[in-house]
């Protein structure tokens, strides 16, 4: 199994969610995140004083899938999250040893 993590622009969240539902992904976790990559931040002005805001708001989407589903899911996230502008985010995956469903204690892919 693979844990796929995507950090993307907040306004692309709905598109990514829809794309993953179409692929049959049953669950995901979303958290609000902030950070910066090449996009860096933006500038805000209050009473003439300029503030550099380095950390840009993002959403982090986490989903655990079977090894076979990993590539199509990554492709779907990349396609759905892309705007073509700097700051679109990153997607990565790491191997997962085990998954347990809390309610039934099922293990492995059966728990996905």
């Amino acid at each position, binding site marked *: 199994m693979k844990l796929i993590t995507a950090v993307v622009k907040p306004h692309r969240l709905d598109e990514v969610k829809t794309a993953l539902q179409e692929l049959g992904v049953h669950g995901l976790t979303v958290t609000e995140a902030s950070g910066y990559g090449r996009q860096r931040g933006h500038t805000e*002005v*209050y*009473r*003439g004083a300029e*503030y550099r805001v380095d950390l840009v708001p993002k959403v982090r989407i986490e989903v655990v899938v079977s090894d076979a589903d990993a590539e199509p899911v990554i492709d779907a996230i990349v396609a759905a999250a892309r705007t073509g502008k700097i700051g679109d985010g990153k997607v990565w995956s790491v191997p997962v040893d085990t998954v347990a469903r809390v309610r039934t204690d099922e293990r492995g892919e059966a728990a996905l």
Partner: protein
Amino acid sequence: METVTLSAGHASALSAGDTAWLLAATALVLLMTPGLALFYGGMVRTKSVLNMLMMSFVSIALVTVVWLAAGYSLAFGDDTFAGLIGGLDHLGMAGIGPADVHGTVPTLLFATFQLTFAIITAALISGAVADRARFAAWLVFVPVWTLLVYVPVSHWVWGPGGWVSASLGALDFAGGLPVEITSGASGLALCLVLGPRLGFKKDAMRPHNLPMVVMGAGLLWFGWFGFNAGSALRADGLAAAAFLNTLTAGCTGLLGWLLVEQRRDGHPTTLGAASGAVAGLVAITPSCGTVSLLGALVVGLAAGVLCSYAVSWKFRFNYDDSLDVVGVHLVGGIVGTVLIGVFAARGMTGGAEGLLYGGGFGQLGRQLVAAAAVGAYAFAVTYGIGRALHRVMGFRASEEQEHTGLDLTVHAETAYDHGVLGHGAPVSSSVLHSAQKAGSQP
């Protein structure tokens, strides 16, 4: 005008119309202080917003008590020494009952109207020491400051025989001197005593809630009609002129500030619009009942433009006037007080005229002297009070309190539920002490 003549040997005639208007105006001015609390509260960070609100809110209670005990008597009692201070005849409002009349309104109402001015002036200073003042010290500062700074200055300007009005002949309709210049100069003194916030000029200290700021500015503007038009102390044409001048200067102040921002920063901001309106209102406070409508347009515009630059001085000269009490109230107050010397119109003042209307430089000079004297007095005495309190009890919160925020460390509250990642908010909470007695629940 319909008047009601009192029996029992009172020569003055009470006017029901004037009294009704001043009752409403007094309530309007009182609303300005909670409005100011929101205006200031939105500008600070989330960790000290409640403390910011509290510094204003608690001023209502503190100033009211000290005003009734001694403030009113010393400010508006008969002059006892060279136009500098009133007497002690009315300590605890002694000798003033429902039948007493001041002009055409009950003396009790006049005293209450003046009280609401004293309240907001003390509250205004809190903006200069946001995020870092010890609350206990503030509770002592406000009554002491009211008696030693606000009360004498209001006696000079409005009290019977006060030297600024009676001897000097400077004009101040609704409080450019006692309210705006006094609060601004005092704010400067107090922020110098306390020193800058941790991270001043280094950390981003962005306003946490601009809608709150705009709502506060709106409430201030609304209340300002009571402040300015109420200062006529009558429901008449002068009150109407002051009312219209107040609206006008708020508008041109707003436009002036936005104009500067658009040209200087490239963006017209919400905070700029709210600040510009307040700057215009500050400047028209002394002049609303003395200048022509043209004067009101210029006074507001001048304040909006000048104050939008003045708020940057703190970064250049290294004083952390956190919410710009100096940049808006001191500078705006000086603009409005001094421009009376240019735009004073005989139709408004009943005599004195400004430079523009053929009055020469005389009135302008008197306005400058009054502004300088009041500013210097307020700065010096407030600095002394601040230093003394700092030595005796400490006026500055501890570093740890300031880092964590005064809301949690002083008031044991947080303004917002930020969820599990919120500053200092408990990850999970349980009831430690129930306020309800056991058995009150079924």
